[in-house]
C-alpha cells in the first residue's frame, strides 16, 4: 500500500511537470505547426541562468522570475529569428514540397538544441550541478507517521495547478487568448478580422518558452542540472502530447498526468531501466489505437 501511494503521489508530481512540457509543445504546434524539439534545450539554458544567479547570492524567487522571463524571451527569439523567416520563404524549391514544410522546421529546432547545448557547455563547462528547491524534499509528517508525499511534490503540484488555472483563464476570458485560439484554428480568417497573426504566433512561442522554463525549474531539484538532463523530459512531454492529442490543450495536460503515472508505476513496481521501453511501447500503442490522441479532433487533410 505504501509503495502504491508513493508511486501515486510522485506520479502526480512528475505528471504535473510533464503536463507543462507537453503544454509548451502543443501551444507551438497549434500556433505555428512546428514541434519544437529545442524546447527543453531552452529550458536547460534558462535553468542554468537561474542557477548562476543563485550562486551569486540572489534569492531563489528572483532567480525564478528571471528564468521565466528569459524563457519567454528565448521562445520569442526562436520564432522571430528563425521560424518566421523559415516558413515565410515562398520561392524555395525545397519548401514547396509538402512533406518538407513540416520537416525543415524540425531540423531547424534540432539545430537550436545543438547550439544551446554547446553554449551551455562553453558558459558553464557542461558540469552537472544541483539546483535548489524552495521546499525541503522530505516526506511530510503528521504526528509520527510519514506520509507518502513530500513537501516538494506538493509545491510542484501547487505551482502547476496555478499555472494551468491561469492558462485556462487566459484562453477563455482574455481577448489575446481568444485571438491565439482563433489564429490556431484558421489563420486566414483571423487575419481578415484584423488580428495580427504573426504577433499572436510569437506570443505563443513566448508562453511555450515560459512553460518549459518553469518545467525545467521544477524538475532539476530532483534530477540535477546538466546540458543533457532535460532531453528525457522532452521525449516524455512529446509522448504525453501525442497521447492526449497534439491539437488539444486539455488533452496534452491529461496526457502529461497519464505519462507521470505510467513512469512512476514502472519505476516503483518494475525497474528504472524499463522506463524508456515503457515510453516507446506506450507511444506506439497510442499511435496505433488512437492516432489523433484522447481529446484530439480527427485530423482533416488539407489538399
Amino acid at each position, binding site marked *: 500500500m505504501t509503495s502504491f501511494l508513493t508511486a501515486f503521489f510522485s506520479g502526480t508530481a512528475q505528471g504535473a511537470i510533464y503536463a507543462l512540457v507537453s503544454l509548451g509543445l502543443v501551444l507551438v504546434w497549434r500556433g505555428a505547426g512546428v514541434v519544437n524539439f529545442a524546447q527543453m534545450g531552452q529550458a536547460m539554458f534558462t535553468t542554468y541562468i537561474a542557477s548562476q544567479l543563485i550562486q551569486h547570492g540572489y534569492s531563489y524567487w528572483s532567480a525564478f522570475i528571471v528564468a521565466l522571463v528569459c524563457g519567454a524571451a528565448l521562445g520569442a527569439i526562436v520564432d522571430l529569428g528563425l521560424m518566421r523567416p523559415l516558413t515565410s520563404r515562398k520561392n524555395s524549391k525545397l519548401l514547396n514540397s*509538402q512533406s518538407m514544410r513540416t520537416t525543415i522546421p524540425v531540423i531547424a529546432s534540432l539545430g537550436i538544441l545543438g547550439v544551446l547545448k554547446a553554449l551551455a557547455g562553453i558558459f558553464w563547462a557542461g558540469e552537472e550541478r544541483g539546483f535548489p528547491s524552495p521546499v525541503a524534499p522530505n516526506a511530510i509528517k503528521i504526528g509520527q507517521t510519514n506520509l507518502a508525499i513530500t513537501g516538494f511534490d506538493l509545491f510542484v503540484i501547487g505551482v502547476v495547478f496555478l499555472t494551468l488555472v491561469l492558462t485556462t483563464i487566459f484562453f477563455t476570458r482574455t481577448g489575446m487568448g481568444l485571438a491565439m485560439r482563433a489564429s490556431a484554428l484558421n489563420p486566414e480568417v483571423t487575419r481578415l478580422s484584423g488580428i495580427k497573426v504573426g504577433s499572436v504566433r510569437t506570443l505563443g512561442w513566448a508562453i511555450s518558452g515560459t512553460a518549459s522554463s518553469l518545467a525545467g525549474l521544477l524538475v532539476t531539484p530532483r534530477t540535477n542540472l546538466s546540458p543533457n538532463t532535460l532531453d528525457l523530459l522532452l521525449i516524455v512531454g512529446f509522448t504525453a502530447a501525442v497521447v492526449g492529442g497534439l491539437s488539444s490543450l486539455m488533452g496534452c495536460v491529461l496526457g502529461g498526468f497519464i505519462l507521470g503515472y505510467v513512469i512512476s508505476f514502472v519505476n516503483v513496481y518494475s525497474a528504472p531501466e524499463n522506463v524508456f521501453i515503457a515510453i516507446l511501447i506506450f507511444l506506439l500503442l497510442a499511435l496505433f489505437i488512437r492516432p489523433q490522441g484522447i481529446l484530439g479532433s480527427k485530423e482533416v487533410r488539407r489538399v
Partner: protein
Amino acid sequence: MSKGIKPVRLKYKVIGGRSTLLSVALFLFFILLSKQFDAYNQSQLTNIATLLIAVFSITLLTGASGQISLGQGAIMAVGGYGSALLVTRLGLSMWLAFVLAIFISALFGLFLGLAAARLSGPYLAGTTLVMALAIPSIAVRFESFFSGDVGLSVDYGTPPTWLSNLLGEISIEQWSLYVVLPFTAIALFAVLNLSNTRAGRTWRAVRDNEVSAALAGINIGRTKVVVFVCASALAGLSGALYGFRGLVAPSVYPTDLSLTLLTAAVIGGLRSVGGAIFGTFAIVFLPDLIEKITKNFNVPETIGNYLPSLTIGILLLLTVILNPRGAAGALEHIRHRRKH
C-alpha cells in the same frame, strides 16, 4: 506529318553505366586519399566511409521520400548488435555477419515502416527520437544476452595473407578501410540506381504531394514502407561496420549519433548523393580542423571542447535558413546562374 512534335521518350537509365563508374571512382578516391594520410586520419577516413552509408539512408528517407527519422542511430545499433551477436555467439565469419546484418535491419525497418507509414512530419520525428533513446536501453535491460553497458567487443580481424602478399605490409587502419570501402561503393551504387529509376520517381512523387501521387496510382503506404526497408538496410550495414571498429555497446550508438547523421545530410544537401559525401566529410573532419585552429589561439580547453558542436549547430542553422538545399543546392545554384 511535316515537322510534328517528337513524341516524348522516357529515358530508361541502364542500371550500371554511370553509377558503376561513380562507385568505382569513389572507391579509388578513398584509396588514393588514404595513401596521403597518417594512421589517425586513415581511421577517420574509415569512419567517413562507414557513416556515409548511414547518411545515404537519410538521403533516401528524407531527401527522396520526405520522411524524417531522428533514429537512424538506433537502426545502426540493430545492425551492430545483430552482426556482433552472430560473430561472438554463433562464430560466423565477419563478412557473412555484415550481409546478414543488412537483412536483420531491413526486417526491423519493415516493422518500423509499418508503424511509420501512418505517421508524418513531427509525429514521425518524435517517434523515431523516442526509439533512438529506447533501443540502446534494451541492451542494458536484457544484460545477459546483449552484455549491457560493457558491450560486445568485435574487430575487423587481420588482413588475409594473400592480400598482404599482393600489397605488401597492411596496417590495421588500412585493413579497416579495405573492409569498409567495398560496402560503401556498393551502397553508393544502390542509392544512385534507386534514385534514378522508377522507385526513386515514385518516392519523389509521394514526397512532393501525397494526394496527387495517390491519384497517379501510387500506393502511398506501401511506398513509405519500402523506403523504410531500404533506408534501414543501409543504416544497419553502416552500424555493423561502425561496431566492428572495436566495440558494440549502447555508448557507441548514442542519440547524438542520429542527430549528427541528419546534420551531415542537411549540410551537404538532403537531395543529393554528392551532398551526402560532402556533409559526411565536413562532420568528421571539422572537429579536427577546429582543434588545429584553436591550438594556435590559446583558447581555454572548456571552450575548445564545445567549439566543434557549436560550429556544427550554427552551420546547420545557417544552412536551414539561408540555403535549405545544402552545399549541393548552392553549387547547382551557381552553375545555373552561370548558364544564364
